Structures are given as structure tokens and as C-alpha cells.
């Protein structure tokens, strides 16, 4: 089966930031929110919910097939895994932020001195990303391109997208 992607239906986003918290929690040592907080772990979220006017917009790495961040990285730290996800090898990252510069979405930011971006290291036992699982309104969808395109072709959704 083709790889699934995270699709964003921004009109459904209520700006609750649950995706961010779930992402950060998925990047703790035992994926346990309370335990991690009590231990003092300080993981980052790898996606961002911003507000533009009245529009909430979650931004997460698109894992572009022809990834500008990979092309721009001078050390090879940013690279493609065999499954085509884009990840950063932090041992090679020199913190030059060329990836941030190259990314058209603003999906590469800074954590503890190193690049911070979605690494898909958050999938649950069913293979669903933590942010998608946490979204209470279905603003984040986990679908193949074909599935999402088929959804978009449905008249109701298309009208909404055009109007949106």
C-alpha cells in the first residue's frame, strides 16, 4: 500500500493545540504525558498551530518527495529514509538552518540548538501519527494521496474547499 500522508483540513481546526501536545508526548521516553512531566522531560512538538486572522492553520512537514530541505542541507544530515520520509541525522546537523531557509512551509524549526521537524517517530500501534490521533475534530487526516484526492472529488468537500 502506498504511504499515508498527514492532510490538513484547516477549516476544522479549533486551535486547541492537542496535536502539538500529543506530538511532544510521543517524543518522550515512554510516551506517558504525566510521567514525563513529573520526570521533567522537555520534549518539543514537531508541528505548529498558528492563527492567521480568523484562520487556524496546523503546519506539519509534507515529507516532500523532492525535498528542498534535503537538497539544501550541506552535510547530508537531512536525508530521505527508504520509505521516503524526510528525517534529520542530528549527529551530522551543524545548525546552519539551510533547511529552514529552503522549506516553503516553515516546517523546519529549532529545538535544542538543532533542527526540529516531523520525524514520524510518533506512530502508534496502528501506525497512526500522534497528532492525527489527538485531533478531536478531524482537522488532521491520515490518508493516502489517492484516498484524500477521492475525498476532495466529492461535491460537498470540493464546494467547501473552493469556498474556503
Amino acid at each position: 500500500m502506498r504511504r499515508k500522508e498527514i492532510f490538513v483540513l484547516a477549516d476544522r481546526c479549533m486551535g486547541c493545540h492537542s496535536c502539538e501536545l500529543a506530538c511532544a508526548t510521543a517524543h518522550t521516553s515512554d510516551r506517558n504525558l504525566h510521567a514525563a512531566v513529573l520526570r521533567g522531560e522537555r520534549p518539543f512538538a514537531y508541528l505548529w498551530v498558528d492563527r492567521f486572522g480568523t484562520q487556524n492553520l496546523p503546519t506539519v512537514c509534507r515529507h516532500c518527495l523532492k525535498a528542498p530541505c534535503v537538497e539544501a542541507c550541506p552535510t547530508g544530515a537531512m536525508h530521505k529514509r527508504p520509505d521516503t520520509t524526510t528525517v534529520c541525522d542530528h549527529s551530522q546537523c551543524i545548525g546552519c538552518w539551510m533547511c529552514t531557509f529552503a522549506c516553503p512551509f516553515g516546517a523546519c524549526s529549532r529545538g535544542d540548538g538543532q533542527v526540529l521537524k516531523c520525524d514520524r517517530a510518533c506512530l502508534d500501534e496502528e501506525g497512526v501519527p500522534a497528532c492525527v490521533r489527538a485531533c478531536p475534530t478531524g482537522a488532521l487526516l491520515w490518508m493516502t494521496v489517492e484516498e484524500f484526492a477521492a475525498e476532495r472529488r466529492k461535491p460537498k468537500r470540493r464546494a467547501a474547499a473552493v469556498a474556503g
Partner: protein
Amino acid sequence: MVTKCQVSLDPAVCEMYEKARRLGVETAWDRYQAMLPQCGFGETGLCCRHCLQGPCRIDPFGNGPKRGICGVDADVMVARGLDRAIAAGSSGHSGHARHLAHTLKKAIAGVAPDYRIKDRAKLHAVAKRMGIPTENRSDEEIALDIANAALADFGERETPSLWASRVLPEVRQKRLAEQHLLPHGIDYEIADIMHRTHYGADADPVNLLTAGLRCAMGDLAGCYMGTDLSDILFGTPRPVATEANLGVLKADAVNVAVHGHNPVLSEVIVAMAREMEQEARAAGATGINVVGICCTGNEVMMRHGIPAATHSVSQEMALITGAVDVVVVDYQCIMPSIVNVAECMGTTVVTTQEITKIPGAVHVPFREETATEDARKILRLAIENFTRRQGRPVDIPNHKYPVVAGFSVEAIVRALSKLNPEDPLQPLIDQIAAGNIRGVCLFAGCNNIKVPQDQNFIAIARRLLKENVLVVSTGCGAGALMRHGFMDPAKVDEFCGDGLKSVLYAIGEANGLGGPLPPTLHLGSCVDNSRAVALAAAVAEKLGVDMDKLPVVASAAEAMAEKAVAIGAWAVTLGLPTHVGVTMPVTGGPLVTKVLTEKVREITGGYFIVETDPEAAAKKLLAAIDERRAALGLSVPGGVRA
């Protein structure tokens, strides 16, 4: 039928859960799945909606916002949230008590002829405790003073609320007074919490927690008052043999489930059901079978031996049987969804109280002045429903356990007096000193959907009983234990360690029971947590020590309601190590978490133990008991641990 499932340890519940799934009837467990994952900000207490600028959310990991818009930090935010939960819980228990105080006044005034002073001994005992004169006075005069004193405990007072102070040993009263932890009016403290947690008021997390504990002591006042007034009006419970679990429903009887909390309603339903037996028989039934759900079930169980159908999170399952003709409710812990289940299963839900109406239910306003008339109306609905139900198959799970319930402190003392008539508490103290009773654990609180129903209660109780800990229980914690045989005297040999076994047999035999007391003692409903306080206070007074020295612990192993939060908070204020088996929404505040689990000990002697793993929780409770035994110079099994 499937008798094992993911959602509950109770085989009867599992059978009905499977049936609900088969029929496509939505249950709390379906709604829980739909709710997952739950919001992490809410889970950690880091979402504030106290003003219209919010909601504000603080990042528990410290990378996002560190303060709310007004500037509150994480500790203030979680302390404010906790305080409001305590205030809400306190309003529930004390609202229940106020209802009883008004009922008592109406009874005395002669406008509520179905209520009367039933227990004179309790009336006089309460009057004596509260400093109300009794000599050459009629019961009515004394009762009126008690009712007025109860109502005067709500508003702002110059002296501490009577039911939060006079019920404690003097040494504890003094200590709490010094720490500003005695409430000056139940309603006053609740309003004070609402004030100080309003935008731009208290921003000192420790000060907020102090106020929260003081408000929780107001909750104790409400609970204690609830117990006292119920005993006066309906009698102080004595041990009674009955049964628990869905197997108590009868296919050929009119099944009426009383659900909620206050005996003001359920007592009259029970009495009228007996009077209307003939009417039920005329309709083709074998009689009227009143069963209990949740705490009002506990109330009528311990006073009349009414069997318990089920409790808390599985309340919908009683209706899934298809055998319940009417569920009559008052207030608190009534899931509004029972109306939807009722519609599917042919049950009628009857609401009775102005503060708890549910669309889809039949509302019969229940007034104390017209109690029997109102009860008759409700029971007629049940008989009519039974007539409609005839011929339809029902599924009553073949699961129930014998239960011996109704251990009020008075009943416990009476049982102990058979061992030592002059000094009934001495045998208990001797057995604790000898180690046959290693300590006492109060199981309280609810079921919580986040825990497979009863799992924590049963696992911890099994371990503690084997370790000779005397287990007393209330509310839906008691419900969990009774549905699994933990109140069946025949189970003592299976569940209890040798020391505890010998004590339960000795008391049982001295009382002519021909066998032991049940493995765990049923103290009653959730307001009856006051009975545990009364027992602990009596033992502490006799020993001449403060309550925080006793080898007594508490566990709300599957806590759910805000009332449970309030109870937990006053248990800690009274000096008890208090286990909570679910994560509380305070973990986002590191200082608050530390205060509640450690620092508060310097002030009250009690502290919270938050532990979601029941085996680990049992170990921690045992360690807390042993620590106190060692401090009292008592033997500790396996020697004192460093």
C-alpha cells in the same frame, strides 16, 4: 454469554456490555472510546477557562506558553482548578445534607407526615456532641435545634462549622485551627473558593491549596451531617444480610431501581413498594422488587437490606437487562444517557428533583409534604411498565453475591462490646497492637471509565486483606467489593490473612452469627465516609494520639466525581495517607504536585499517594501503614524498613 471483557471485572456487566454491543445501544464505554485521546492540557490541569479571555493553555513541557494571559503560572492554574473541583464536590455532599435538614424540620413541624424521628438514641448522641441541651426537652425540641444548628453550619460563622470540628479529637481540631483549616461555614467556604479562583484574585498556589483543604473540611461537615440526619430520620444501620449484582433483578416482579443519593426519596419508595405489593400482584407480578444503584442503593441496603443491582460506571447495564421497569433518581452520578438506554429497553426514567431534570425522563416532582402520594405515582408507572413488559424476554445475568452490609460505627461498637462490654474499642486496639489487624484501609469513591471497572479496588483489597489490613468501604467502592464477594462472610477464609481471619471470626462468634463478619465492612454511602472518620476519631481519642498517628489509610482507587476529590482532600487534611488510583489534573503544576504528595504532610500529617498500578498502590499503602505502626512502637511484619 461472555463473562470476561475489557471494560469490567464484573461478569454481569460483561454480559450486558456484550448485549448492548449486539443491540447497538451506545454505552459510556463507547463514548469513552470516541473521546480518546483526551486533551493533554485538561489531563494535566493546564487549561483555564475562568475568564472570557481564555481558554489559556500552558505547555506542560515548558516550550510553549508558560503563563496564562493574565500571568498565572502552571501551579496557580492547577491549584485553581483543583479548588473548584473541591468546591463542587462540597456543594454536592452538603446539598444532600441540607435537604435532610429541611426534611427533619418539616417532619418536626408536622407538614411531612411520612418522616419522623426514628432513632432517638442517635438524636441524643448528636445533640450531646453538638452541645445542644437535652434534659427535660422533647425529641422534637432537640431535633429542631439540631436541624437549625445544621443549617447554621452553612453560612458565614464566627466559629468553625460544628460538623467539621466537634466531630474530631480536640488535638486535631487545635492543629487544624492553627493552620486555618477549619471551615467557617460550608457555603461560605465554597463561595470563598469561587471568589479566590476568579480572575485576578489568589495567585499563590500554596494559599490556594490551603483554602481548598479548608473547603474540603466543609465537605466533611456536609458528609457527617448527612449521615447524622439520615440516621435520626431513618435509623442507624445495623448489619443486614442481602445480595448484590444484576442477578438481584427478578423477571417476574416489578423491578424498581432507586438511583442517586438521598434516602429522603428512596426510603419512601421502599416503604410504599411494600404497601403496593397487592397492586403489583393484581397486575400479574410476583411483587415489587426494589433494587439499588449507586449510593442511594447503599442507604436503603444498610437500613432495609434492599439488594444492590450495580454501581457507578455500569448503571446503564442495569437497564440493558430489559428487566428494569422504572429507574427513579434524585441527584448526583445520574448519567443522562440512561434516558437513551431506557428508550431502547422499555424502561421509564423518573426524575424527582428540581436540580436534576433530564429531557426524555418523566418528571414527578417529589415533595416531602406529599411523599407517599408521589412515591405511589412513581410505583404505578413501574407497575404499568411491567404490564407492557410482560411477554418480552429479559436477560438477567445469573451473577450475584451474598452481602452482609450496614456497619455503622454504632453497629461496630455494639459488635465489639460482645467481646468487652465495658470498653468496646479496647479489643480493636488490642488486635491492632498485636498485629492481627495490621492497619485499616478505607475504600471510597467511584468507578472511573479509565480503569476496567473494579480492577483497582479488587486487586488492592485482595492484597491488603491477605496482609491482615481491616478494610472498610463506602459508596461505589463498597459497591465494587460487594459485587465480587468481598462482603460475603463465606469468603473470609479465601480472602483474609490468618490474623484478620481470627478477628473476624472472634467478633462474629461473640455476636452469635455462627461465623465470621464479612471480609470487608460496608460503612454505607459516600456521605458515610463520615463513619470512617467517627471510628478513627474514637480510636485516636481513646489512645490519646492525633489521627495522623493511626495506621489508617484511604484509597479512592477508581475516583471519578468531584465529590471524590473533596473527600480525598479532607482525608489528607485529617492526616490520612490517601491513595488515588487515577491521575489527577494537577500534574502540570510541579509545586502543587509536590505539596499534595509530600509537603502537606508537614501541615496535616496526611498526603496523597497517586498510583495507577494497583499492585504498586497496595505496596505503598502497606508501607504507609507500617511506617505508622513503627512510629507507635508496634510490630511491623518483616521488621521496620529503613
